[in-house]
């Protein structure tokens, strides 16, 4: 178990951070999220083409970078720190991991997703907790898909959807091209302005049925995503703490830097402590992906990190005072991301309930 960042990971982080510093400034993100194209697909193509961010944990044999979930986590941390509106979670984590769980995996599609030429999404509600029952709102009959999935992350940017559907012989998994009349993607008004969600309707849509075990492929995608989302939450929390500390050093009231007031210092010190625990838990979860402790590590990390991220974002808004309540200041983008992330892939309460039996803390009765 290595809870540090390796040199390779630090280099990856630096490259991603450099690019995002250049291309994902709060003002431009804010302007973009009010347009009808809230995803920054140019940035996404650069991230994938230049840094390989679209296929980090895809084996080299399938055209990927052959790295591990740890590197994916590092990128998520940076994306959390900038709330850059790229379809990383939907395409490079959820859809890609689901495809990797199929046997044999669709190397061509993985290659297209990895290159950024094609954007994918996994057609499940973003609120789905890992371990949930296989979704049944889409039916697979007569060779086509019918049904509806609400609140799909990054679907509005997707070219291809990975779709769980229930057929006559049980659960199935499909890839579906969005550019057909039988697929409708309707953007929802998303609380999280920088990770837009959309509702998807299938009305006799053509699909390619994936082989392998659809339940385990979907489950794997959700567990991996839950484990890694904790790193995004660490990134969000880290930005909030760092930004607040910087603001309070600068902001003066009563003739003093506001950051010299002890009550605020103590709150920030507590936040620093929460973040230290969150980071250890998130690194542990990334390290454990695919191993025997994956689920315990994922639930532990996600329940803790989502709580810490929300707390950090709420403190960020509060300690910025009035300016933190304005649309112009980026704090609200982080608050909205943190709160949506708390619900994404299950709430902390759901995670604790899933965790309890795994660590022999049985529920009452």
């Amino acid at each position, binding site marked *: 178990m290595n809870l540090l960042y390796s040199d390779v990971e630090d280099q990856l982080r630096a490259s991603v951070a450099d690019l995002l510093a250049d291309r994902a400034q709060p003002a431009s993100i804010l302007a973009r999220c*009010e347009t009808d194209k809230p995803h920054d697909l140019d940035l996404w193509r650069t991230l994938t083409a230049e840094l390989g961010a679209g296929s980090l944990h895809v084996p080299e044999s399938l055209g990927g970078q052959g790295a591990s979930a740890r590197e994916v986590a590092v990128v998520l941390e940076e994306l959390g720190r900038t709330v850059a509106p790229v379809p990383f979670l939907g395409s490079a984590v959820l859809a890609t991991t689901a495809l990797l769980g199929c046997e044999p995996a669709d190397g061509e599609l993985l290659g297209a997703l990895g290159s950024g030429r094609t954007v994918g999404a996994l057609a499940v*509600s*973003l*609120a789905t907790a890992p371990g949930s029952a296989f979704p049944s709102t889409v039916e697979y009959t007569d060779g086509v898909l019918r049904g509806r999935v*609400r*609140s799909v992350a990054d679907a509005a940017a997707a070219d291809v959807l990975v779709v769980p559907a229930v057929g006559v012989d049980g659960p199935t998994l499909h890839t579906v091209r969005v550019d057909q009349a039988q697929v409708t993607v309707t953007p*929802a*008004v*998303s*609380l*999280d*302005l920088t990770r837009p*969600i959309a509702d998807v309707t299938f009305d006799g849509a053509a699909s390619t049925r994936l082989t392998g075990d659809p339940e385990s492929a979907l489950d794997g995608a959700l567990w991996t995503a839950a484990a890694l989302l904790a790193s995004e939450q660490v990134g969000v929390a880290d930005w909030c703490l760092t930004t607040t500390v910087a603001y309070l050093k600068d902001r*003066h*009231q*009563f*003739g*003093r*830097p506001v950051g010299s*007031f002890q*009550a*605020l210092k103590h709150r920030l010190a507590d936040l620093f402590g929460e973040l230290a625990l969150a980071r250890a838990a998130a690194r542990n979860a990334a390290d454990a992906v695919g191993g025997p402790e994956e689920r315990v590590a994922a639930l532990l990390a996600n329940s803790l990190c989502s709580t810490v991220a*929300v707390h950090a974002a*709420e403190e960020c*808004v*509060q300690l910025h*005072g*009035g*300016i*933190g*309540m*304005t*649309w*112009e200041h980026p*704090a*609200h983008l982080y*608050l*909205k991301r943190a*709160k*949506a992330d*708390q*619900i*994404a892939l299950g*709430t*902390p*309460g*759901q995670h*604790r*309930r899933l965790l309890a039996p795994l660590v022999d803390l049985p*529920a009452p009765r």
Partner: protein
Amino acid sequence: MNAETLRERTREFLDRNDPATTDRLEFLRARFDAGLAWVHFPEGLGGLGAERELQNVVDQELAAAGAPDNDPRRIGIGLGMAAPTILAFGTDEQKHRFLRPLWTGEEVWCQLFSEPGAGSDLAAVGTRAVRDGDDWLVTGQKVWTSSAHSARWAILLTRTDPDVPKHAGMSYFVLDMTAPGVEVRPLRQITGEAEFNEVFMTDTRIPDTDRLGEVGDGWRVAQTTLMNERVAIGGRPVPREGGMIGPVARAWRDRPEVRTPELHDRLVDLWVQSEALRLAGVRLRQQLAVGHPGPEGSAMKLAFARLNQELTGLELEMLGEDGLRYDDWTMRRPDLVDFLGREAGYRYLRAKGNSIEGGTSEVLRNIIAERVLGLPAEARVDTKVPWKDLPR
């Protein structure tokens, strides 16, 4: 003046001014002139010099008769903040000019106190007013101004002497919001709405006759304004579940599928605290009624903000997938704000302001610690230095 006499007088007024047949504005003006607007104000200024509590008698009689009111929510700043300040510090001429249209709502008021650099530290205001003959020339920026776009007048706190310590160099004015150089811009919030405005003044001319209080005495005048703002908080009684607990409890009842044991315990705990806060409000009003106001008001505002935030945060978790959605990000300029209005996402975001507006929770904790508990104040570094030399 006792309750019976006042009730009699109100009935006589109603006999002379039938609400069913009198124009709304005419009725309100007549009510003001009859001294039934705010009975604790002096005669001739809408009142009768009576006890403040007796206003209830008038209001009940008028409400029973179906009389129109002056829509107090819409003109709250005028009624709650400008009026008591004008009464305390205004000249006779000012009182007669301003109070009647203020009370009837013909002239809306706003308040120009906070600035980007003077939030919790209001005494740091930097909007400069420079004497120019019989006028003052005012330049500066104010922020968090509600009703600025519909207001005819503003109460305005300015810096008239930057060379003395900050509390000593302020003066207080009435500003004509239609004067040249006044620009109002909506200030959009994290909810997407713009409840508030920024107000920019550029060489805006104010006649010295519109000054309230002495030159350099603005801080004392402003204290009167703020004291009256605080009195207004926690004013009216609220029924059980009348606050933010209401929509959250209803969502719980309406949606059995979202219930989990964890959320249940948190919700009941917040229900308990909400009801205790409501009871504390009842208790505070009972104390006021027997003439022993307690110091709990600030603590109640703290709890109000905290509970609103915890409840709305819980609600989004409870809603799960629906908590990922928002109702509408369109920029709007609402006239009135309802913390409970709109959907759960809005309530969550709007509640964040409850611990900032009207005194941050941090400032309230200082006030409780120092004024209520009597804990020693921290050493101040900003009270003896000329305003212009303060670090900022």
